[in-house]
């Protein structure tokens, strides 16, 4: 009973906050609604016993991806009037994408209803007693090894791409060289002088 209640609670919040992502006027509010949607989707995953996926959803999407989104929308100067004007010109494209998604959904549900998906193929290939993290681990690093390495390559490309796109070498900075500082000894830096009165100090070519 509680599970059913929790399911409807999470599902309602997911749908409602997803709608708010679109309808919120302020992009920062949109991102926050998106976070709420992710969070409740994680709740739904827990109800499906996919606890690892639920935690990953929170760690990766809420904890990392949405932080980047927030950084971006908080710090970009967004001209709202221009956005509104863009709405009309982009409407055909957006509408077309929405139509494609709708058709895909209908096809998916239709195929499900038609019964062409063999239910036996969807059963879990591992014994029930294994916690699902270990179940994922046993498959991911053995049977899906190439997909896993491909994911690693994609991450590498993403990292290099991000650096190439955003990094600008800064001139005129004098970064601290901590190794050099730590290697410096008193003998190199300090000089004792028996200074006679009335004469200047010979700095010995030291630049000030």
């Amino acid at each position, binding site marked *: 009973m509680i599970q059913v209640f929790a399911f409807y609670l999470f599902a309602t919040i997911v749908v409602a906050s997803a709608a708010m992502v679109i309808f919120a006027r*302020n992009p*920062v*509010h949109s991102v*926050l609604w998106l*976070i709420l949607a992710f969070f409740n989707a994680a709740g739904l995953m827990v109800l499906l016993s996919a*606890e*690892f996926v639920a*935690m*990953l959803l*929170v*760690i990766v999407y*809420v*904890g*990392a991806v949405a*932080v980047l989104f*927030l*950084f971006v929308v*908080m*710090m970009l100067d967004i001209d709202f009037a221009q956005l509104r004007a863009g709405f009309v010109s982009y409407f055909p494209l957006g509408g077309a994408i929405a139509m494609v998604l709708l058709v895909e959904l209908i096809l998916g549900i239709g195929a499900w209803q038609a019964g062409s998906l063999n239910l036996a193929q969807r059963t879990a290939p591992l014994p029930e007693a294994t*916690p699902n*993290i270990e179940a994922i681990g046993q498959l991911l690093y053995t049977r899906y090894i190439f997909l896993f390495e491909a994911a690693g390559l994609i991450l590498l490309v993403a990292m290099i791409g991000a650096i190439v796109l955003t990094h600008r070498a800064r001139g005129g900075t004098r*970064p*601290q060289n*901590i190794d050099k500082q730590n290697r410096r000894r008193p003998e190199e830096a300090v000089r004792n002088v028996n200074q006679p009165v009335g004469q200047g100090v010979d700095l010995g070519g030291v630049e000030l």
Partner: protein
Amino acid sequence: MTSFIQSYLGTGFGWFVAHLVYILLIALPLMLAVAMIIYADRKIWAAMALRRGPNVVGPLGLLQSFADGLKVFLQETIIPSAANKGLFLLAPIITFTVALMAWAVIPFDAGLVLADINVGLLYILAISSLGVYGVIISGWASNSKYPFFSAMRASAQMISYEVSIGFVLISVILWSGSFNLSTIVMTQKGYYGDWLGGLGLNGHAFNPLLFPMAIVFFISALAETARAPFDLTEAESELVAGYQTEYSSMSFALFWLGEYANVILMCALNAILFWGGYLPPIDWAPLYYVPGIIWLFAKILFFFFVFSWVKATVPRYRYDQLMRLGWKIFLPLSLFFVFLVSGFLMLTRYGAAG
């Protein structure tokens, strides 16, 4: 206790009441502990600076935090006119809620845990990654310069150190073979028991492969909770009071409560992951007569003392030094230890399987 209450109130409602009691048994003492630990913090700094610290309210100043709490409670809540009102009020709620939530999976003693989930450590990681939102939202919603700068700094700092914390946790998980915090505690039992005549040491930190990770975790914990020497989110000379500059009354206090609740949580995690949690430090039968919760609290208090000690003695880092430590030292080091620990385990424990 659950079955006792259920016998009076029926299965469903009795379960609800029992767990509500458990939750309040965690949340309320936690808030009390935060109040006392703020007092302890101030006393420790004062002692290290040869001052007296709070000593007026109550005997030895013990009630100082409660006096402060009452004062802020009766003060006016100021919402700046330029702020986003809803988000401005939401930020302290998020901070404090998140700080409380993580305690749901902390094992206080063998079997004494509110939610004994398989993925306890991942849950903690997930919850602590939410902590960054309280900071960003408060900084942005204040619509004021210093809070905003501070929030940007704080969030970049928190996410940088979360990376190395993640890899450090993997070393511990590799050794313990589980995400469940109770299992992680139990796998720390009796290091070197064979050599020391049965009197083993309890704690992953006594493992030479994991001890460096314990140090990295401790320092990352300092950075993650923005404690000195990494408290440059509230560097007074640069940023007034940090992201809570515009806050007043209890909303301001909630940031403090949340911050200290997180500090205690990090101390508890240090104790649980590396120093044996609720186990006594030495695997010797008479020590087990002392309840585990006492050992855990003793360890938490010890780590809190070290946190305070560091705060009283170490000067603040600069931002570039902070980032260098996180990305250029801790990240490669913890990655290397993932390699080292897993390689060692493959050679000794799992080698036969391959």
